[in-house]
C-alpha cells in the first residue's frame, strides 16, 4: 500500500515538475523574443545609415575563402558554385572539397568548370585525410577543387582551411544558397569590431521560395504541412533565440549552413572535431572555451540581415533523421565540454548558455515527452484535477503561439516583403496548428536522438531535399 502511495506521490510531483518546467521554458522563450524584438529593431534602423554597398571597393574588407564540403552532392554542387560566383564581394575564393564522393560530384565539377590538376604546396596546419589532388581552372581563377579521401564533413572543412589563402573563411552547405549581399554584410561584423571571431547569418527555409542566383524572386506556399511548420520553426529559432544569445556574447550555435570564421582562431583551437556530427556547434563552443580560458576578448555574433536559404526536409522521415542528428550533436558537444557547465571562469557561456542548453534544449525534450504521456495518464487515474490539466494545456499552447506568432511579427517588421499579407497570415495559422501534433512528434524525435546517442553519434544519414530552381 505504501509503495503504491509512493508511486502516486511521485507521479503527482512529477506532473507538477513537468508543468512548471514547460511554463518556465515558454516564459524564457518569450523573454528572449522581447529582447530580440528591441535588438532587431535597432539593427534594422542602424542598417539604414550603413550603406554597406559602399564597402565593396573598400580596402578594409577582408578577403574570404568559401569552403564547400561535398559528399555525393551531384544534384546541387555545380548549380551552387555557379550561384556563388555571382555574389557581391570584391575578393573571395571558392574551395569545393570533395570528401571521397561515390557519385559524380567530382566529375561534374571538373567538367563544368574546365578544371585540371595542379601541383601545389599545402600548408597542413590541421591534420586531415590524404588529399589526392588540387584542381584549378584558367577560366575561373577563384575556384579550387580539392579531391580527398573520405573523412567526414569536419575533415573536409579542415582540408579546405588548409588549402585556403584568406584570413576569413565560411563553410557553406552544398544544398544551400546565400543571398548576393549576405557575405558582405556578415564580413562587416569583422570590420565593425575586430574582436569578432565568428559571425553567423540567418538561415531561412527555401521551400516555396524562388531563389535565383542569390536573389529572392517570390514565394508560394509549400505544399506539404511539414514544410509550412518548418518555416515557422526557423523564424522562431533564428529571430528569437540566436539574436538573444548573441546579445550576451554566449551564442553556442552558428549554423553549419552559413557562418563566417576568423581562420587563425579556428586553427588555434585545432580545427573542426572530426568524430562528431555536431561539428558546427562544437567548434563554436570550443572557440568560446579556448578564448575565455586564455582571457582573450572576442565576439561571436549573429547577424539577422545576412540571409542563407536552405531546402528543409519534405517528409517526417527526413525530419526525424535531421532532428535526431541535431540532438545527438548537441549532446555530444555538451558532454565534450561539460567542464564549462556552471563554471564562472567561462562567464555567460558557463553560467547561462551551457546550463540552458543542458536543462532546456537537451533534457527539455525528455521532460516534455514524459509529460505528454504521464499527465493524461494521471488524469485518467484520477490523480490530476481536470480543470488544472485544461488550464495547463491551454497555457502551454498559448505560450507557444505567443512565441511563434511573435517571431512572425518580427519577420514581418524587418524583412522585405517575401510574402504577401495573405500568405503571411496563412503561415501564422501554422503557428497555432504546430502545437497540436507536430511539436509533440518533433519532441519524440529529439528523445530518440538522446536514446540512440551511442549508436548514431557518428552517422550523418542522407536527407532528401527539394532542388533549387535553375
Amino acid at each position, binding site marked *: 500500500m505504501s509503495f503504491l502511495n509512493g508511486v502516486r506521490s511521485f507521479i503527482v510531483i512529477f506532473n507538477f515538475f513537468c508543468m512548471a518546467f514547460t511554463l518556465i521554458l515558454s516564459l524564457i522563450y518569450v523573454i528572449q523574443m522581447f529582447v530580440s524584438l528591441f535588438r532587431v529593431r535597432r539593427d534594422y534602423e542602424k542598417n539604414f545609415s550603413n550603406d554597406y554597398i559602399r564597402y565593396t571597393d573598400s580596402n578594409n574588407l577582408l578577403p574570404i575563402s568559401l569552403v564547400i564540403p561535398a559528399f555525393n552532392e551531384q544534384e546541387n554542387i555545380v548549380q551552387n558554385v555557379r550561384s556563388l560566383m555571382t555574389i557581391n564581394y570584391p575578393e573571395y575564393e571558392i574551395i569545393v572539397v570533395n570528401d571521397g564522393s561515390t557519385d559524380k560530384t567530382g566529375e561534374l565539377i571538373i567538367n563544368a568548370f574546365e578544371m585540371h590538376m595542379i*601541383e601545389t604546396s599545402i600548408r597542413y596546419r590541421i591534420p586531415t585525410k590524404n588529399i589526392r589532388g588540387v584542381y584549378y581552372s584558367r577560366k575561373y581563377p577563384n575556384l579550387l577543387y580539392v579531391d580527398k579521401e573520405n573523412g567526414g564533413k569536419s575533415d573536409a572543412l579542415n582540408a579546405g582551411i588548409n588549402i585556403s589563402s584568406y584570413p576569413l573563411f565560411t563553410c557553406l552547405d552544398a544544398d544551400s544558397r546565400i543571398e548576393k549581399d549576405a557575405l558582405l554584410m556578415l564580413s562587416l561584423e569583422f570590420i*565593425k*569590431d575586430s*574582436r569578432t571571431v565568428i559571425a553567423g547569418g540567418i538561415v531561412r527555409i527555401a521551400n516555396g521560395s524562388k531563389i535565383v542566383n542569390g536573389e529572392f524572386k517570390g514565394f508560394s506556399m509549400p505544399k506539404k504541412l511539414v514544410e509550412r511548420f518548418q518555416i515557422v520553426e526557423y523564424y522562431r529559432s533564428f529571430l528569437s533565440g540566436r539574436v538573444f544569445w548573441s546579445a550576451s556574447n554566449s551564442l553556442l550555435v552558428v549554423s553549419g549552413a552559413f557562418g563566417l570564421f576568423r581562420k587563425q582562431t579556428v586553427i588555434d583551437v585545432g580545427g573542426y572535431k572530426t568524430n562528431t556530427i555536431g561539428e558546427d556547434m562544437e567548434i563554436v563552443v570550443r572557440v568560446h572555451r579556448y578564448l575565455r580560458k586564455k582571457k582573450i576578448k572576442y565576439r561571436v555574433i549573429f547577424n539577422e540581415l545576412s540571409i542563407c536559404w536552405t531546402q528543409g526536409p519534405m517528409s517526417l522521415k527526413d525530419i526525424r533523421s535531421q532532428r535526431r542528428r541535431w540532438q545527438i550533436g548537441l549532446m555530444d558537444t555538451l558532454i565534450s565540454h561539460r567542464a564549462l557547465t556552471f563554471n564562472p571562469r567561462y562567464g555567460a557561456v558557463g553560467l547561462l548558455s551551457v546550463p540552458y542548453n543542458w536543462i532546456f534544449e537537451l533534457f527539455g525534450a525528455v521532460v516534455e515527452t514524459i509529460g505528454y504521456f504521464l499527465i493524461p495518464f494521471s488524469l485518467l487515474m484520477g490523480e490530476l484535477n481536470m480543470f488544472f490539466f485544461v*488550464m495547463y494545456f491551454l*497555457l502551454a499552447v*498559448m505560450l507557444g*503561439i505567443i512565441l511563434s506568432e511573435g517571431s512572425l511579427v518580427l519577420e514581418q*517588421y524587418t524583412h522585405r516583403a517575401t510574402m504577401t499579407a495573405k500568405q503571411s*497570415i496563412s503561415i501564422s495559422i501554422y503557428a497555432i496548428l504546430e502545437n497540436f501534433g507536430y511539436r509533440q512528434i518533433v519532441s519524440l524525435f529529439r528523445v530518440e536522438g538522446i536514446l540512440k546517442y551511442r549508436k548514431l553519434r557518428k552517422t550523418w544519414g542522407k536527407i532528401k531535399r527539394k532542388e533549387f530552381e535553375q
Partner: protein
Amino acid sequence: MRYELLAVIGLIFCLVIIGIEYLFHYRLAELQDEKTINTRQLDQRIKFRVEGIIYAPTDLSRKSEIEALAKDIDNNFETYEKSVSIIENTRDKFDKDDEEYRDLDQLIDRVDEIVDPVSIYASMLDSNDIYHKGYALRRLADLGAEEYRDVMIELSQDKHRDLAYNAAMALAKFGDAENVAAFLLSIQDDRLYSGRIINEFFDDFKGDRVELSRILFENCNPYMMSNIIKAISPYKLEEYHRMFVENSASKSFQIKVASIKALAAFGNPDDEQLLQIAAQDKEWVVRAAAVKGLSLLDSPTALASVKNALRDKEWWVRQTAANALTSMDISPRDLEDILGGYDRFAADAVKSVLYKQIDNLA
C-alpha cells in the same frame, strides 16, 4: 481557489497578447502589401517620367517633364534617389566619351536644380532618428552642400558615435583635415573602433592627405600611428618617406611592420639595403613585407634575396617570395634550379604559383 484564479488570469493575459500580436501582424502585413503596390506603381511612373525626360523632343517639354518628376518626388529622398539611379543606369550604358553620356550627366544636374535634393536631405536633419540624420549628412556632403558644414562639425562631436562618425565622414568629403583629425583623435583610445575607421577616412578624404596625416601624427598614440602609416602607404606620400625609414627600426612592432610595408610600396632602389635587413628579421610578417618590397626593385641582389626567401621556414614568406619571383626578371636557368633542386619548400612554392600563371597565359 487562488491558483485557479491565477491560471485563468494568466490565460486571459496570454489571449490578449496573442490577439495583439495577430492584430499587429495583420496590420504590418497589410502595410507591407500597400507599400509593395505603391512602390511598384511609383517605380513604373518614375521610369516613364525619366524616360520622358531622357527622350523629350524639345527643351521645353523636357523642362515640364522634370517639373512633373519633382512633383512625384514630393520631397521623398527614396524617390529622388530612384529617379537619379534610373538616369545613371541609362547613362552608364554609354561610353564616357559619348555625347549621350555627357547629356545624361548634365540631365542629373538639371533634375537637381529643379528638385533641390539639398532641401530634401536638409529636412531630414530635423528627424529624431539619428540614422536618418547620419545618412542625410553623408548625402549633403555628396551634393557639396557647404552651407551645412557647421552642422556637420557640430554633429561630429555628438555623443552618439554613429552620428558623429557619419558627420565626420561628410567632412572628409569636404577635405576638412582639421575636423576629421579631431574626430579621429577623439576615438584613438578605442583601438577596436579606430583601427578600421582610419582606412575608411583616408579612402574617402578629398583634401590634402599629407596635412591630415601631419595633424594626426603630431597628436596620436603609437597604435593609431601604425594604422595611419598603413592607411597612407598606397598613396606613396614622399613627405613621409624619411619618417618611414626612421621607423623601420622602431621598437614598436606595429609601427615597424607598418613602416616596412609603406616603404615596400614605394619601390625605391635607395631603400634596398633597408629592405634586405628587414628580409632577415626574426618576425615573419616583417620578412614577408620586405620580400614584397624587394620584388619591386630591379636589381640582382634583390632577386637573390627573394630567391633566398623561398627557403624561409614560414610558409607565408615562401609563398610571398614565389609570387614575387614570377614578376621579377628571373632567368630560365635559375627557375630550373629551383624547380629541380633539393629544396622541396622552394620548389613547391614556385610550382603552385607557376601552374596558375602558365595556365592564365595559355
